[in-house]
């Protein structure tokens, strides 16, 4: 049945019916002459007008048929315009946006946006889009499609929606844009990884991926998704049925889920201490992005994306908390029992202290995240495996995070105390504690952040602790040695005027020599890595041993020298000992035995020389000093 007559508008439509003519199939309207475009759009408008004014019965089937042909045509035109503006543009701005770091470029880009949006043909566009990119300062929308093409798209969308073809319009729009967004994600290296894939990867590999993800997520949310949303608004806003929201969501939902799935997988990965800092990086990045995510996905329909981002953020926070408590557990339970040779700093101490100084670098985030106090010893006071410690004295003056740091140091010491028991030599155990606690103190003092958090009170306690360990060391090594140099037991009350037992004296000298040699031999292999601490301890040893030996020598030398083989008993001069003390705590065995006075080399230090001179009764300091200056071979004095 032939239609009775065709209107002019219908003729235009039918002329472009691609099922009817080869020419109509080959050519696109919107790539051609502007006049032709206007003519076609006018025809569609006329058709619709005719449709809506026609009464029930006489809305002729030719009109509806023509309208359907027109809509199919417009759908194809719509797709074609979209397709011709996908990849090339995006290539430029994606690489450009990666350099957004530079403020000047940001500015240029913003200006560009402002310019392009100002010559939009639609009146309502201006106010709206400008408000859009002012919402958060970090969002940077770019023009995904040039404004004249956007204009054409909107012209078509208007007509399709008016004719009830909204669904088709959304369908075409979303399918094309989605593939464009997908291509951009690929370019940004946003991979499609399953949770299983991510769990199988090495942590180092994941660290790189996390770093890359953070960069990509910023561009995705602030540039890519934000620009997609603006494009939807430019084309569909005000055309009813919240078409802009629907288009945005259908374009972005899968890519957004793909993007967030990675962070989600990281947030649920197994908790172990080394992951803390990258997890915090991820947390901080996402937390920075939250206002932008909320603004880009503000519509009701995109709620699920918003919700997922919030969930991930809170999971990351939870993971950080979990890792910290996991870390505390690990510090407490670190099981190595083999004593560190030489009583130096245990690897655990280094690890823990480096870890907590990194924690202090992240303190801003962690202070917010760590809200519950550590589960300290008081709760487990009957438990011998947990240090008994009351943190309440530090509460109030410091953050919960700082309490955790103090607690970690406390359990570290507790663990080290346990390890020190594995040294057979009690002196070495004390030296080990001294070294390690001293290291802890130095690490705290070395970081302003850490020092501030730990606070002076606890730092004083720690300082007291390593000083005590030093004292304990000296007591346990040197009391025995100095005992040989006491007067008691040497004087015999009898008829002889001298009143000194030669044999007892000889035994004393022998005992002293043996003990000192032994201490020298072993403790030269011990190690105090901190030079200043090493120096201080040696001085302190010298201050105790040297004067005692000197005076003992002064008082009893004559008794030995008057007998036979005095060199068997007085083996060492005062400066021999002074030199010997210099070998202590260097961490390697001395090659020769204790050097005799005859071997003394020029290296003798000024202060030792002085001491020696004074002990020999050469009193004038002046003389000594001048002689030193005049005679480099000072020891020959």
């Amino acid at each position, binding site marked *: *049945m032939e239609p009775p007559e065709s209107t002019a508008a219908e003729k235009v439509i039918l002329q472009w019916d*691609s099922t009817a003519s080869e020419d109509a*199939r*080959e050519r696109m309207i919107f790539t051609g002459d502007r006049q032709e475009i206007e003519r076609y759009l006018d025809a569609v408008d006329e058709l619709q007008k005719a449709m809506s004014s026609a009464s*029930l019965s006489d*809305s002729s*089937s030719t009109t*509806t*048929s*023509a*309208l*359907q042909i027109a*809509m*199919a045509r417009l*759908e*194809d035109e719509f797709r074609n315009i979209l*397709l011709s503006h*996908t990849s090339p543009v995006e290539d430029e701005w994606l690489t450009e946006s990666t350099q957004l770091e530079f403020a000047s470029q940001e500015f240029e880009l913003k200006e560009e946006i402002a310019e392009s949006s100002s010559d939009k043909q639609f009146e309502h566009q201006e106010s709206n889009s400008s408000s859009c990119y002012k919402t958060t300062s970090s969002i940077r929308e770019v023009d995904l499609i040039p404004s004249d093409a956007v204009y054409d798209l909107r012209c078509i969308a208007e007509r399709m929606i008016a004719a*009830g*073809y909204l*669904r*088709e319009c959304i*369908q*075409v729009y979303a*399918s*094309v844009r*989605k*593939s464009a967004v*997908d*291509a951009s994600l690929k370019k940004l290296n946003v991979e*499609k*990884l*399953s*949770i*299983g*894939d991510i*769990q199988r990867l090495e942590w180092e590999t994941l660290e790189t991926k996390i770093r890359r993800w953070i960069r990509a997520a910023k561009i995705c949310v602030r540039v890519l998704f934000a620009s997609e949303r603006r494009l939807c608004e430019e084309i569909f806003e005000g055309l009813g049925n919240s078409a802009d929201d629907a288009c945005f969501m259908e374009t972005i*939902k*899968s*890519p957004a*889920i*793909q993007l967030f*799935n990675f962070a989600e997988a990281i947030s*649920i990965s*197994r908790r172990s201490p080394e992951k803390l800092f990258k997890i915090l990086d991820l947390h901080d990045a996402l937390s920075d992005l939250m206002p932008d995510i909320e603004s880009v996905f503000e519509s009701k329909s995109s709620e*699920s994306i918003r919700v997922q981002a919030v*969930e991930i953020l809170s999971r990351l926070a*939870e993971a950080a908390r*979990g890792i910290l408590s*996991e870390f505390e*557990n690990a510090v*407490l*339970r670190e099981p190595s029992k083999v004593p560190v040779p030489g009583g130096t700093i245990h690897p655990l101490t280094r690890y823990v202290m480096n870890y907590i100084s990194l924690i202090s670098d992240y303190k801003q985030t962690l202070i917010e995240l760590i809200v519950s106090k550590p589960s300290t010893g*008081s*709760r*487990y*006071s*009957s*438990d011998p*495996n947990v240090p008994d410690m009351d943190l309440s004295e530090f509460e109030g003056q410091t953050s919960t995070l700082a309490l955790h740091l103090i607690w970690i140091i406390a359990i570290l010491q507790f663990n080290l105390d346990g390890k020190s028991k594995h040294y057979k030599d009690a002196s070495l155990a004390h030296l080990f504690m001294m070294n390690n606690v001293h290291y802890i103190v130095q690490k705290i003092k070395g970081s302003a952040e850490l020092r501030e958090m730990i606070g002076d009170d606890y730092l004083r306690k720690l300082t007291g602790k390593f000083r005590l360990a030093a004292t304990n060391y000296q007591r346990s090594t040197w009391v025995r040695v100095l005992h040989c140099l006491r007067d008691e037991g040497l004087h015999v009350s009898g008829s002889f005027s001298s009143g000194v037992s030669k044999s007892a004296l000889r035994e004393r000298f022998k005992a002293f020599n043996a003990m000192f040699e032994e201490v020298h031999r072993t403790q030269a292999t011990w190690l105090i890595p901190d030079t200043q601490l090493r120096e201080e301890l040696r001085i302190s040893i010298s201050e105790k041993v040297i004067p005692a030996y000197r005076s003992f020598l002064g008082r009893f030398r004559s008794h030995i020298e008057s007998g036979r083989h005095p060199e068997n008993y007085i083996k060492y001069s005062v400066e021999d000992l002074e030199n010997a003390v210099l070998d202590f705590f260097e961490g390697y065995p001395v090659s020769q035995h204790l050097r005799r006075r005859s071997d003394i080399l020029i290296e003798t230090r000024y202060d030792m020389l002085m001491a020696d001179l004074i002990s020999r009764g050469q009193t004038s300091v002046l003389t000594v000093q001048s002689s030193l200056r005049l005679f480099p071979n000072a020891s020959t004095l």
Partner: protein
Amino acid sequence: MPATDYQESSSSPSSFGFSILSRRRDQVHSMESTHDATGQETELEAFQRQVAERFQDLAAADSHELLSIPWIRKLLDAFLCCQEEFKIIVMNNKSKLNKPPMDRHISDFFERSVKALDVCNAIRDGIEQIRQWEKQLEIVLCALGNQRSIGEGQFRRAKKALVDLAIAMLDEKDSNTTLAHRNRSFGRHNAQKEQRSFGHFRSLSWSVSRSWSAARQLQAISSNLVAPRGNEIMSTNGLNVAVFTMNYVLLFVMWALVAAIPCQDRGLQTHFYMTRQFLWAVPILSLHERILEEAKKRDRRNSCGLLKEIHDIEKCARHMNELTDSIHFPLTEEKEREVKQRIEEVRRVYDAIKDGLDPLERQVREVFHRIVRSRTDGLDSISRANSHD
């Protein structure tokens, strides 16, 4: 609650002169370690019974209900309940779960449950896929549903949507070639270029890589899943039966989801360990059998999902296609009545999907969350029990 009663009575003799804090610790301790054999048994038996009841209930579904969205939601509900009860068992048996052989069993379970998370994500993608088909039905309804009179134009519009629907519903592997013509009412010379971009679009509907396979994931969940042996049941006081049960429930629920909903490389040949010694095994295995039978039916064999609503889409689309092919204008009154009837059918299907998918998606998400939570809490409490032992 018997467990609570027991806890109270056991704690009183040990509460001599300790501080309140240490006493509380003692209570927790005693509740676990001296957890009286009968107390634990009733808890574990109750778990077996509840799981069995839930699945008997699910198995009671007739062939219309089975694999429908409401049934799937009921299945997920059952899973969430089992998961909750299992979680309590884990909490009450921390210290046993960190010693061999239970430590291995429970960590196996947590590993399996992580694998289920990927299935949940794939299912979410699949639901999104069904939503795309829903959109095509919506167009059919737009074209033919609300018109005062139905003309050729409307039919052409509906037909176009039906063609798109058919293409979209083709299984992934067959569809890429046809995609160039997707949505096109006429061909054009640059078809090749478009094919590329639509290829992108297709791959995008899955958020996991192309190599990911639901069938393999199920295989991984099911591997090494065997019923505990008698002597081990004795030595663990039946605790390993609870873990096995939860593993089995997890596997079955994930398998059923993959059976019902489109996802990448579906495959239902996952091996199900045959065991009838447990109360719940009978209903689960009978459901397994019924679902497999459904998959073997001729009209479902090539389907992209056994979900009843997908079948309904296929049916109503076929009816609509037949109708549009047989139509001549002007419509006879009889044809017009038929059209109205068919449209009502489409509307029913459309409404069921439209109303069903959102809550289903949320529930799948909830399953995801609960699995994560139970794993995190479980690992946490077990490791803590470890450190304070």
